[in-house]
C-alpha cells in the first residue's frame, strides 16, 4: 500500500516535532495538533473503505502481530511445549500452557516468522503434519485437566511439500478436526491474520470462532482462485471480493461469532490495544462457555457444525 508510507512519514514527522517540543522548549503544540488531525483524516480515508484485496494484504502485513506477540501480552506465564512425540517439532505451530487471568489454559498458535531466518524455521507459518499432531496432543492434555483451549489461526495454509504428503498431512488435519469435535473442554478459535483453507480450519473447529477485524478466512487464497477459476493470476482482486473472506462479511453469513476491533490502520498500529480487545473477548466468551457442563458443551458444538451449510429444497424448483 503506497499510501501507507505517506502515513508512516507523517507519523514520524509528528514524533520528531514532539521531540523538539519537549527538548528545545519551542512551542509546537498547534503544529502537532494540526498534523495529527490531518493524519487522522488520511487514515480514515485510507482504511475506512478498504476493498477485500487490500484487506488480504493487511492481514498479511509484514508488521502485523503474530501469535506469540499476542500470547506474550494476553496470557501470563506462557510455558511452551514442544514436539509431536512421533516425528519432530513444528515451529510453525506453537503451543503451551498459559494463564488467562488466573485460569490455566492451553493456547495454540500458528506462528509466522519476522525475519527471513525466522521464516525458514517457521515455514512462513505453514503448519506441517508434526504441527497438527502436536496440536492434537496439546488439546488432549487440556481435556485431561479441564483447561479451555484457545487457538490463534494465522497461516497461508498447511505446508505443501513432499515431506508433508509423506507424513499424510490430510490425515493429520482430519484427526485434529475429529479430536476437536469431541473435546470435552471449551474451545475458542481466533483468526488473527490469515485463515488459509484446511490448514487453518484444522485448529478452527470450536465453540466460538472469532476474527480480528482485518483478518481474512477463506477456502482458497485469492491468488489460487484467480488461477483456477478465472484462469488469470492477475485477477485476485475479483477473486478476493467473490470469496467473501472478510470478518464483517463472515459475521453476516453467520460463520463467525464475533469480530474483534483493531485500531485504524491495523493491529500493528497498536498491539496493546488490539491485545486488550482480544483478551476482553476471550474472557467474555470463556466465561459464558464455562457455564456449560462438558456433555452439553460437546452437544452444542455438535449442533453448530451439524447445521452448517446453505442449500435449497429441490422440490421447490419449477
Amino acid at each position, binding site marked *: 500500500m503506497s499510501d501507507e508510507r505517506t502515513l508512516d512519514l507523517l507519523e514520524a514527522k509528528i514524533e520528531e516535532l514532539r521531540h523538539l517540543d519537549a527538548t528545545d522548549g519551542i512551542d509546537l503544540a498547534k503544529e502537532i495538533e494540526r498534523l495529527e488531525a490531518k493524519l487522522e483524516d488520511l487514515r480514515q480515508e485510507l482504511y475506512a473503505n478498504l476493498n477485500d484485496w487490500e484487506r488480504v494484504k493487511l492481514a498479511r502485513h509484514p508488521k502485523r502481530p503474530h501469535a506469540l506477540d499476542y500470547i506474550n501480552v494476553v496470557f501470563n506465564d506462557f510455558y511452551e511445549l514442544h514436539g509431536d512425540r512421533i516425528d519432530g517439532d513444528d515451529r510453525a505451530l506453537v503451543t503451551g500452557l498459559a494463564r488467562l487471568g488466573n485460569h490455566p489454559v492451553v493456547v495454540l498458535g500458528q506462528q509466522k516468522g519476522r525475519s527471513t531466518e525466522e521464516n525458514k524455521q517457521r515455514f512462513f507459518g505453514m503448519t506441517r503434519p508434526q504441527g497438527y499432531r502436536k496440536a492434537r496432543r496439546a488439546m488432549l492434555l487440556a481435556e485431561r485437566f479441564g483447561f479451555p483451549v484457545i487457538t490463534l489461526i494465522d497461516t497461508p*495454509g*498447511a505446508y*505443501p*511439500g*513432499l515431506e*508433508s*504428503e*509423506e*507424513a*499424510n*498431512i*490430510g*490425515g493429520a*488435519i*482430519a*484427526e485434529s*478436526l*475429529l479430536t476437536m*469435535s*469431541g473435546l470435552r473442554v471449551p474451545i475458542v478459535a481466533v483468526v488473527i491474520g490469515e485463515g488459509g*483453507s*484446511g490448514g487453518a*480450519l*484444522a485448529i*478452527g*473447529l470450536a465453540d466460538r470462532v472469532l476474527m480480528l477485524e482485518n483478518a481474512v*478466512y*477463506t*477456502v*482458497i487464497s485469492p491468488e*489460487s*482462485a484467480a488461477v*483456477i*477459476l*478465472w*484462469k488469470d493470476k492477475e485477477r485476485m482482486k*475479483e*477473486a478476493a471480493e*467473490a*470469496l*467473501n*473472506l472478510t470478518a464483517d462479511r*463472515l459475521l453476516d*453469513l453467520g*460463520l463467525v461469532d464475533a469480530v474483534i476491533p483493531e485500531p485504524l490502520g491495523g493491529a500493528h498500529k497498536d498491539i496493546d490495544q488490539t491485545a486488550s480487545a482480544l483478551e476482553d473477548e476471550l474472557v467474555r466468551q470463556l466465561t459464558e462457555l464455562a457455564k456449560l457442563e462438558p456433555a452439553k458443551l460437546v452437544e452444542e*458444538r*455438535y449442533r453448530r*457444525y*451439524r447445521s*452448517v*451449510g*446453505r*442449500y*435449497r*429444497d*429441490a*422440490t421447490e*424448483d419449477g
Partner: protein
Amino acid sequence: MPIFKDKEYLRVDLDREPDESLWMKCKSCGELVFKRRVRENNNTCPSCGEYFFLTAVERIELLVDDASFEEITKPITADDPLGFSDRKSYPERVAEAQAKTGLSDAIVIGRAAIMGVPVVLGVMDFRFIGGSMGSVVGEQICHGIETAIEERCPFILVSSSGGARVQEGLFSLYQMAKTVAVRATLAEAGLPFISVMTYPTTGGVQASIASLGDVIIAERGALIGFAGRRVIRSAMTQELPSHFQSDAFAFEHGAIDRVVGRDGMRDELSLLLGFFVEAP
C-alpha cells in the same frame, strides 16, 4: 439388471471422442480400443488395464447386489450463498453439471446390499464440478451416516473429489468440520465406516471424512493427497517422485490400509464387512 427402479440416468462417457465413434483412444497406452469392450470391462482399457472414470451410478452397479440399491439422496440442491460468479455464475455451473450428469449434486446416497450385507453407501461423482464438496455434498454424507446409524448398518463412502467447492467459500470449508463431527457419531454407535478412495481423493475431502475410515481402501490407480502437485511445484522448487500421491505412495507412507483393483472391490468390501456384520 437395473439397479434403480423408477429413474432413468444419463450415461456420459468422460472420454468420449468428438466424433462419437465406436472406438476410443486410451489416454494411457494410446491404443485404439472398442468402446463397448471398455464399458463391459468396468471402464477399464482392454489393452493396458488403465481405469477410466466411473460415474456414481456405474460405481454403484459395480459394487452392490442386483436390484438392491434404493436411492435415499436428500431432495436438496445447491444454493448460492455468496452470489458467486467467476467466468460463469455458480448457479449456471450447477445447472450445467446437473444437465450433464443427471445428478442433483456430486454424490449419490442409498441403501444397498453387498453380497447380502445391508449397508448405506455414498458414491461421489467427479463429473459434477470435480466432485467438490459444498453444502449439499456435506449434508448428503451426514444424511448417509445418520441413516446408517438408524438402521444399524455400516457406512461406505467412495470418494472421487478434488476437495472443497470454492464457489461456496467458507461454507464449503466448514463441511470438513461437519462431516467429521457426524462421522464421530457413527463410531459412538459402534458402526464401521469404510472409506474407499478413488481417483482423485484430494484436498478438503482427503483432509476430513475420507481419511477417517475405520478401514481405508484405495482403488488401484487412485490419486491421494492434500495439496495438488501444481501447488507444491509452484510453492516449492522440489523434485517430486514419479509415484507421488499415487496409491503406491499412500500405501508406502501408511496413509491407507490396502490397494484393490476395480474388479475385486466388491469381493473386498464383502470380505471386510464380514468382520463387522454377520451375513444374513
